[in-house]
């Protein structure tokens, strides 16, 4: 379903949705772009670079209580499941790379075993994408990883900026619902609008981006050069922080820990938090043995997971080319360069 929204009515639309759901849109504060809850009277405008934190947090929050427990000394524990009572949430201004990441996250959290926490949120969150008319970051490379500045994957709605208006396309049932619910604000798109959108998309495809060789070549190269000394060389400056993966829209690793709130009686929560393959303890066995014992091995894991293992398992790259891990690496470690140099492509 394709419609047209006049730019000046954007805020109205947002406000209308806000009456039934929590709405988030990118806002610039403290020097960064972030998805922020939109208050009733906020004026929403889309001129954002990519948000620093990706959209994944809406479905996979950094901290999630899996369940609570309570145990009197010497007695059996009681467990209280805490599935999220997720409220309807609509997130505006999601870049296509983040949308595509959602497809990847779905693969992780809903294949094999269904993750009920993820699912509960996923069902309630509507992602309204915004096609990139120019790369929001100089480190973007979505085209190289099978995406595009106007990819619809994982999004519920895709908006494309045209002259003075947005081309609004509902993609999923969830998306249709919010578009249809605003029939009064949105005009049906004409053929010309469709054409204009297509042209905007085609123009965006022509904007220069960082580039990576094809999926197959990179994957093959990484596989072949698993033992390459380059990994160590390239990771020598790595400081082992978690900026790259925490900011990555498709990184999904987590840790599970118990947090005690009282000892008598024992009460607490089993909590899931984001975790990170760049941290040394991530894979460290209780014995101290660590299969990925240095930054080289950990860099290799991150890059290979994105561009090789995921390909082997799902036949798509996990990386969607958002460029965050490059832009925010404290020491300039660059997945495009690393993958290119190691794979010899």
């Amino acid at each position, binding site marked *: 379903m394709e419609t047209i929204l006049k730019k000046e009515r954007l805020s109205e639309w947002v406000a209308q949705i806000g009456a039934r759901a929590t709405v988030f849109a990118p806002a610039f504060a403290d020097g960064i772009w972030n998805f922020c809850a939109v208050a009733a009277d906020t004026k929403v405008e889309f001129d954002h670079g990519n948000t620093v934190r990706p959209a994944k947090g809406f479905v996979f929050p*950094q901290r999630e209580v899996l369940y609570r427990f309570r145990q009197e000394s010497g007695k059996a524990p009681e467990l209280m499941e805490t599935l999220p009572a997720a409220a309807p949430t609509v997130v505006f201004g999601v870049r296509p790379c983040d949308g595509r990441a959602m497809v990847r996250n779905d693969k992780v959290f809903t294949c094999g075993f269904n993750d009920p926490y993820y699912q509960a949120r996923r069902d309630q969150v509507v992602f309204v994408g915004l096609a990139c008319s120019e790369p929001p970051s100089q*480190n973007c490379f979505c085209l190289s990883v099978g995406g595009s500045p106007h990819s619809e994957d994982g999004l519920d709605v895709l908006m494309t900026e045209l002259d003075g208006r947005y081309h609004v396309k509902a993609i999923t049932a969830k998306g249709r619902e919010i578009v249809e619910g605003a029939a009064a604000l949105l005009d049906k798109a004409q053929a010309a609008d469709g054409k204009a959108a297509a042209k905007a998309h085609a123009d965006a495809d022509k904007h220069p981006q960082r580039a990576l060789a094809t999926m197959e070549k990179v994957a093959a190269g990484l596989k072949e050069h698993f033992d390459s000394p380059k990994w160590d060389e390239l990771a020598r400056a790595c400081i082992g922080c978690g*900026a790259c993966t925490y900011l990555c829209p498709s990184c999904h690793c987590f840790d599970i820990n118990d947090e005690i709130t009282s000892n008598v009686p024992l009460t607490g929560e089993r909590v899931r938090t984001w975790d990170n393959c760049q941290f040394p303890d991530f894979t460290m066995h209780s014995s101290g043995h660590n299969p990925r014992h240095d930054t080289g091995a950990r860099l290799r894991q991150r890059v290979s997971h994105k561009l090789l293992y995921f390909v082997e398992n799902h036949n798509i790259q996990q990386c969607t080319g958002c460029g965050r891990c490059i832009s925010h690496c404290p020491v*300039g470690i660059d997945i495009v360069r690393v993958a290119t140099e190691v794979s010899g492509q």
Partner: protein
Amino acid sequence: MVAIEDIRSRAKELLEGGMVRAVLGFRRSSAGLLAEPTFVVASEDVASLVWDATCVHNLALYLVNEKKRQKAERTPDTRPLAIIAKGCDSRAINVLLQENHVAREEVVILGVSCEGGGVVDTRKLADALRGKEAASAVCDDTGKVKVATASGEVTFPAADVLADRCLECTIAYPSVSDTMFGEKVDERGFTARFAAVKSIAAMSEQERSAFWDGHFERCIRCYACRAVCPMCYCDECVVDSTSFIVSPMTTAEEKANRIRWIQRSTTPADNAMYHMVRAMHLAGRCIDCAECERVCPVNIPLRLLNTSLEQEALEMFEYTPGMDPAQPSLISSFRDDDPNDFIR
């Protein structure tokens, strides 16, 4: 002005003479504006070394990281490491010397003076460019910084885009070095020392509280701030362990009895705890390289925490970190006339 050619030729000498195992310096990065750390091991690669206002990193960190790396190597190269160090970086080296973490003979310090300039603050640039990224930045003699962006060149007054730490810096040249490049410039005429921290201190209590709550709440605990800090070299951090020391000697009890001072959860309180503890641990040790603040992806003004204590240390205890490797640390010393009137 520091001539990069001088640095390169000294680096070449050192490498050709086999006097160092590597020269740790800066080169252009593929990731954006800022230079990136590089280990030059072959003398023909010295040409890749650069020196400009984008060389923000405090390379002293790698003295620490390299130590860990060397420990893991079977036949480590024990020749010293040459390192390019700005004023603040050299003070970091001094603290590492003071804490016996490195020995003077393990490092050849190629000190560079920031003279009348300093390094850019990407955050200020981002603000100035509204989130758009710059491609290069050069600080010239006239107190201007030229910034190239996709849509052309912009020139900013230095005070607009240089890092706060540089604006407030009073010792913009290395306090320890083997070779020094550039001139010692004492009068720089930017902002007064501790200007940033004073502006926060001037807020009302409620404002300050809200200010920090807002910031701490954002922290994703990526620990980039800790990882980049040369003083946070502990193998296992007391605050939140992402690295555990487990050796064949470590007993099950020891592992079982690790204290979880705070949880891994990113609740505002746990985040605040993390930053409080870290700030306390950096009291008298932080040399204000502001790297922690720079690397924070969500722009938490961490430097303020550390400089607030730096200010206290200076004003109350006449202590300046990183000036003298022989002095006892701030918290392992006292004077009889330390402030007492806050005590009931």
